[in-house]
């Protein structure tokens, strides 16, 4: 690699000892002991990963096993996006986020299952079968990064990479009882992330704890000249060891907004109760909790499901049988394109390509796509106005329900609504995260923080304080290895 592609120099990363004590051998022991193969969390495994030499490295993550969502390009394993159209495809280059993990000494043990091309909220839309939630195998792990979330929740790895377009890290983190972080748009390079909706896509991280997720984020963050949307801003310590002198009130001076639109009257009262308990805990830690309003929240799902499919219809045009993966036999070029794509794409991808092509087509562009972009601007302005009013963070539920059963949501729009509290952060480009805050019927409930652009350290500091305060009552998935 040219030196122009070297990561931004970072300060010394504080790596939690919990990461360094979980070895590749532990990962495989956990995999076999807990029948992780039955979860269908991985699409490919590198059982020889221990022989790559990484274990002898001295990097911050030397010898730490990690799992990578299968839409991030890797040199050593296939990158299929859980689609038949990319079956067996091995990338000739590696995603910047993956390369930075490897350069820190991490060992990539496998690529994880996902909704095809990251289109879904359950990881049921994989061409290779659904992933199951390790906490209840009759339920989904969430999506689209469900395989990575399941790998962490099952204890195989303590950190994993996922990706987000509308909540695909936070929602599965909530369903699996772990921590999931979506950084500011541009904080982490998208180079090597297979494009779904380019203006919304982010590489995100999963961790068993806030500190582990913060460490992983700090390593993959930073400017990358190979991604023109990568932000050329310094990478600060993501989780400062101590940011306030008052140990009893570590969040003193912090203002946490509670947006009323994220607590509708029909919200499951048990989820609302856990959020209220978390907010009370934040107040006990010294934060001021203030009710705020983001009035365009109800418009986020319609806006998202116009913009994302529109961008997807363009990005997925490259899968035509001529460039990548599978090719169908046909008598002429056009038929080859059409047969390859109709056989290679699953139902949800086909539906979104058709929807996206429709809203971009002549006669409908102004009514749908152009209007959705304008409403996206309104949503972004509302976030900016709330943060400009002195609010440092927002706190909300991550999802309206705990993990649902496999096959329970058959109506596409009903499935889309599971991202109702997460899509706004992607539309506005702000960082957001989910962490466990309690249990409902034995299933984890996620609480969500959102922050101004590039304010990840503030968000992670509050999350770490809340995690410590809630302790075992948060309902985090246990790491068993």
């Amino acid at each position: 690699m040219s030196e122009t592609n070297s990561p931004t120099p970072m300060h010394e990363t504080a790596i939690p000892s919990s990461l360094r004590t979980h070895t590749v051998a532990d990962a495989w022991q956990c995999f076999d002991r807990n029948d992780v193969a039955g979860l269908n969390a991985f699409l490919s495994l590198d059982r020889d990963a221990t022989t790559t030499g990484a274990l002898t490295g001295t990097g911050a993550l030397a010898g730490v096993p990690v799992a990578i969502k299968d839409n991030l390009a890797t040199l050593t394993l296939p990158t299929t996006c859980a689609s038949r159209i990319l079956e067996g495809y091995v990338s000739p280059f590696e995603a910047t986020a993956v390369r930075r993990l490897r350069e820190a000494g991490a060992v990539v043990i496998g690529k994880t299952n996902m909704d095809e091309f990251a289109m879904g909220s359950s990881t049921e839309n994989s061409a290779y079968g659904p992933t199951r939630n390790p906490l209840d195998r009759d339920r989904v792990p969430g999506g689209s990064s469900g395989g990575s979330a399941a790998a962490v929740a099952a204890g195989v790895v303590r950190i994993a990479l996922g990706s987000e377009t509308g909540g695909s890290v936070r929602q599965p983190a909530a369903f699996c009882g772990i921590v999931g972080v979506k950084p500011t748009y541009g904080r982490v390079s998208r180079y090597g992330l297979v494009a779904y909706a380019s203006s919304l896509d982010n590489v995100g991280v999963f961790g068993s704890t806030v500190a582990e997720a913060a460490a992983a984020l700090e390593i993959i963050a930073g400017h990358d000249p190979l991604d023109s949307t990568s932000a050329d801003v310094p990478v600060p310590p993501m989780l400062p060891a101590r940011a306030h002198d008052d140990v009893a009130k570590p969040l003193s001076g912090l203002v946490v907004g509670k947006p009323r639109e994220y607590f509708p009257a029909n919200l499951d009262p048990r989820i609302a109760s856990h959020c209220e308990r978390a907010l009370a805990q934040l107040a006990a830690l010294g934060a001021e909790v203030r009710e705020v309003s983001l009035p365009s929240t109800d418009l986020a799902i319609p806006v998202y499901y116009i913009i994302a499919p529109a961008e997807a219809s363009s990005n997925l045009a490259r899968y035509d049988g001529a460039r990548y993966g599978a090719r169908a036999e046909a008598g002429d070029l056009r038929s080859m394109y059409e047969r390859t794509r109709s056989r290679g794409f699953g139902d949800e991808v086909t539906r979104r390509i058709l929807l996206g092509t429709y809203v971009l087509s002549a006669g409908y562009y102004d009514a749908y796509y152009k209007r959705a972009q304008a409403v996206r601007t309104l949503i972004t302005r509302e976030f900016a106005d709330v943060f400009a009013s002195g609010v440092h963070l927002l706190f909300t539920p991550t999802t309206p329900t705990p993990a649902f059963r496999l096959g329970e949501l058959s109506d596409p729009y009903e499935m889309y609504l599971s991202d109702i509290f997460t899509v706004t952060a992607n539309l506005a480009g702000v960082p957001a995260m989910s962490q466990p805050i309690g249990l409902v019927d034995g299933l984890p409930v996620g609480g969500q923080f959102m922050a101004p652009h590039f304010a990840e350290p503030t968000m992670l500091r509050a999350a770490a304080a809340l995690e410590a305060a809630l302790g075992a009552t948060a309902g985090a998935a246990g790491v068993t290895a």
Partner: protein
Amino acid sequence: MSVTPDDVRHVATLARLGLDEQRIPALVGELNGILAHMDVLQQVDVSGVPLTPPDQAAPLRPDARPADALQRTRESFAPAMRDGFFLVPRLTTHGAQGASADEGDAA
């Protein structure tokens, strides 16, 4: 606005997707069901609202050749090569037009 079967056929053509006729009625229903939820956007006053927030314009990068990200030899990208050229699967239509029998059998 509602989607018709002809709309689905037209959009599928634009998107280079071959659809079985039997699938079209279900797709019409699904797309209309989804688009019905989008109608709420028609009630929003967006006059004068820009399509992109002023502070979120895409950043520009220097107009310079980026680093070469390809780490493998070009021979490793193709199933076979001959005389420095990639051998790729042959389209049936090309074969019918008299392409030599030993060309493009690498797939």
